[in-house]
C-alpha cells in the first residue's frame, strides 16, 4: 500500500477482536486522502463500524497501526491533553444509533456540548448553534427534549452536534439507515456539499443507490473481515460476482437495461416450480 503526504488517515494491517475472540477486523490496510470521500461497503458484521470507531480513536486495534494527520493514534497519545483536543476537534463521528449520540436533555445543549468541551467562547458557540440549526432546518427544535424528536430529527441533531465543531474529517456510520426518502436525499446532498467544501468523508453504508454521490472510492469488506476490493463506485457496482460474494446483493438483484443493481418484488411462484 503506498502512502502519500496528502493522506490524512493511514491504517496498516489493523486487527481487532471483541473480547479477544470475536474477530471484527483481520488485517485491514488502506489510506484516505485529504478531501476525498471513501465508502466502506460490506454486509452486517463485517467490521465497518469497528473500523470507524478505530478511526475516531474510540477503540484501539489489537495489532497494526493507525496514523491520523501524520501522527500515530494510540490510547496513550489520546491521554495527552493537547493531542486529544487537536484530534477530537479535527475528526467528527456520526453514530448509527442517534439515541446514543443525542444524550443531552435538550437540543440546544446537545449541539453546544462539543464546542464547550473544546473551550470555544460562549458567544461564538451561540452563533454556531444558530448557523447549523438553520442549515439543517432544525431551529424550531432548539428547546425540545430528545424524546420529543422523530428519528429523522434526531439524526439531524446528531449531525448538527458534530458539524458545529467544524471537523476536517467526518465519519458516518450508516447515515441513511431508517430515514425516510426525503431526509435521506437531504443527507446525501449535505454529504456531497461538505466534501465540496473540503471535508474528508468516510462513511459505512449498505445503500448502493447513492454510492456515486457519496463516494469517489469504495472499500469492499468480506464477511471474513478483510478488504477484498478497492475501486471507484462504478467499477465496484459493475462487478456482480464481487457483490454477490460479499453479500451486498442477492442473486435476484438485477438491473433494468443498464440501470443500477436493485431488488424488487417478483413472482414467488417460480421458487415453488409453479411458474
Amino acid at each position, binding site marked *: 500500500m503506498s502512502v502519500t503526504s496528502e493522506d490524512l488517515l493511514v491504517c496498516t494491517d489493523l486487527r481487532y477482536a471483541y473480547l479477544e475472540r470475536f474477530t471484527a477486523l483481520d488485517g485491514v490496510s488502506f489510506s484516505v486522502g485529504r478531501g476525498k470521500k471513501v465508502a466502506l461497503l460490506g454486509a452486517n458484521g463485517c467490521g465497518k463500524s469497528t473500523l470507524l*470507531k478505530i478511526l*475516531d480513536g*474510540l477503540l484501539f486495534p489489537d495489532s497494526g497501526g493507525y496514523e491520523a494527520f501524520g501522527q500515530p493514534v494510540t490510547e496513550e497519545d489520546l491521554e495527552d*491533553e493537547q493531542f*486529544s*483536543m487537536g484530534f*477530537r*476537534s479535527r475528526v*467528527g*463521528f456520526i*453514530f448509527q*444509533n442517534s*439515541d*446514543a*449520540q443525542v*444524550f*443531552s*436533555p*435538550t437540543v*440546544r*445543549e446537545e449541539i*453546544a*456540548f*462539543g464546542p*464547550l*468541551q*473544546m473551550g470555544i467562547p*460562549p458567544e461564538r*458557540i451561540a452563533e454556531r448553534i444558530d448557523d447549523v440549526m438553520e442549515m439543517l432546518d432544525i431551529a424550531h427544535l432548539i*428547546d425540545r*427534549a*430528545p*424524546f*420529543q424528536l422523530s428519528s429523522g430529527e434526531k439524526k439531524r441533531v446528531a449531525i448538527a*452536534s*458534530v458539524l458545529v*465543531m467544524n471537523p476536517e474529517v467526518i465519519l458516518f456510520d450508516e447515515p441513511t439507515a431508517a430515514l425516510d426518502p426525503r431526509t435521506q436525499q437531504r443527507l446525501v446532498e449535505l454529504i456531497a456539499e461538505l466534501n465540496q467544501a473540503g471535508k474528508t468523508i468516510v462513511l459505512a453504508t449498505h445503500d448502493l443507490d447513492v454510492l456515486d454521490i457519496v463516494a469517489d472510492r469504495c472499500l469492499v469488506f468480506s464477511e471474513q473481515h478483510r478488504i477484498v476490493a478497492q475501486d471507484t463506485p462504478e467499477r465496484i457496482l459493475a462487478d456482480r460476482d464481487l457483490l*454477490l*460474494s460479499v*453479500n451486498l446483493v*442477492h*442473486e435476484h438483484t438485477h438491473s433494468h437495461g443498464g440501470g443500477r443493481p436493485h431488488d424488487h418484488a417478483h413472482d414467488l411462484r417460480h*421458487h415453488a416450480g409453479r411458474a
Partner: protein
Amino acid sequence: MTVASEALRTPDWLLQGEAGLSPCTRSGKQKRRSFIEKTLNGASNVMRQAMFSEDVAQQHGLLQRIDARVKVVVGLVLLLAVAFVHHIPVLLGMYALTLVMAAVSRLPIGFFIKRVWLFIPIFTGVIVVPATFSFVTPGDIVLPLWSWHGHAVGMTTQGLETAGLLVMRVATSVSLVVLITLTTPWVKLLAGLRALFVPRMFVLIIGMAYRYVFLLLNSVTDMYTARKARTVGNERDTRRDRRFVAATAGALFGKAHALSEEVHMAMTSRGFRGDAKTLGGLRVSGLDVAFALTCVTVAALLLGGDHLLGR
C-alpha cells in the same frame, strides 16, 4: 445463509390456514386486566405527565418568566419561613398566596390542588391522627370516643390544632415545591440547582438520566406490547408472569449498560475528558430581582405577624 443458497423450505402448516382458537365475535365475557395492561398504562401516564409538565412550563405566566436560580433560592427561603410559622391562620394565608401564584402562572387550579392534596391525607394523615387523641396530646376533649378506667378518651382541641398546623405546613410546603417544578422546565431547574452549589457533574448526570429514562421507558413499552400481542386466552400463571417481569428487567439492564458504553463513546468523540462543561444561559433580570425582594419581604412580614400572634 450463503449467497447462492437453496430456496427456503417453508413448512406445510405455514402454507395452510390455521383454525382460530375461538370465533372472531364477541361473547360478552370481559377479559381481566393483567399486569401488562397496567404497566403499559402506567408507562404512557408517565410520558403524558412529562409532556404536560413541559407544556405548563412553557406557558406565559409570571413564574415561568422568573430565572430558575431565583425561584430555587426564594423557594428555599419560603420553605424555611413555613417551617418557623406556628399559627394556622398565617399558614392559611401563605397557602392562599400559593394559589394566587398558581393562578397568575396559568396553572390549572384544579390540577394544582389535586397534585398537592392527593397524597397528604395518606402520608401526613397517618402521622397526625394519633396526635389528636388525648393520650398523645392531653387537653380539652372536644370529641369523646370512649372511656378508659373512668377517664374520657377522645380528640382534644390542642391535638386537633397540632394536627391542623402540621397538615397546613405540609400542604403549603408541597404547594411551593409544586409551583417551582411545574413552572420550570426540568433542564432549567437542574441548572438552577447550581445556585445552591450543587456540583456541575451531578447536574450533568441527572440531566442525562432524565433524558434516557424516556428511551428506556419506550423499550419497556415495546417489550410489554410485544408480550400483549402474543397473549392469547385468559389463563393467569403468576410464576410465568414473574419470570417475564424478571426477564424484562434483566434485558433492560443489559440494554442500558450497552447504551451507556455507546453514550460514553459519543461523549469522548466530542472531546469529553471528565470535566463537565455545560451551557450557562441563565440571566437575572430586573423582574427576577423584584420578585425575589417581594417574596423575601412577604416571608419576613408573615414571620413577623406570626411572632406578634404569640407562641
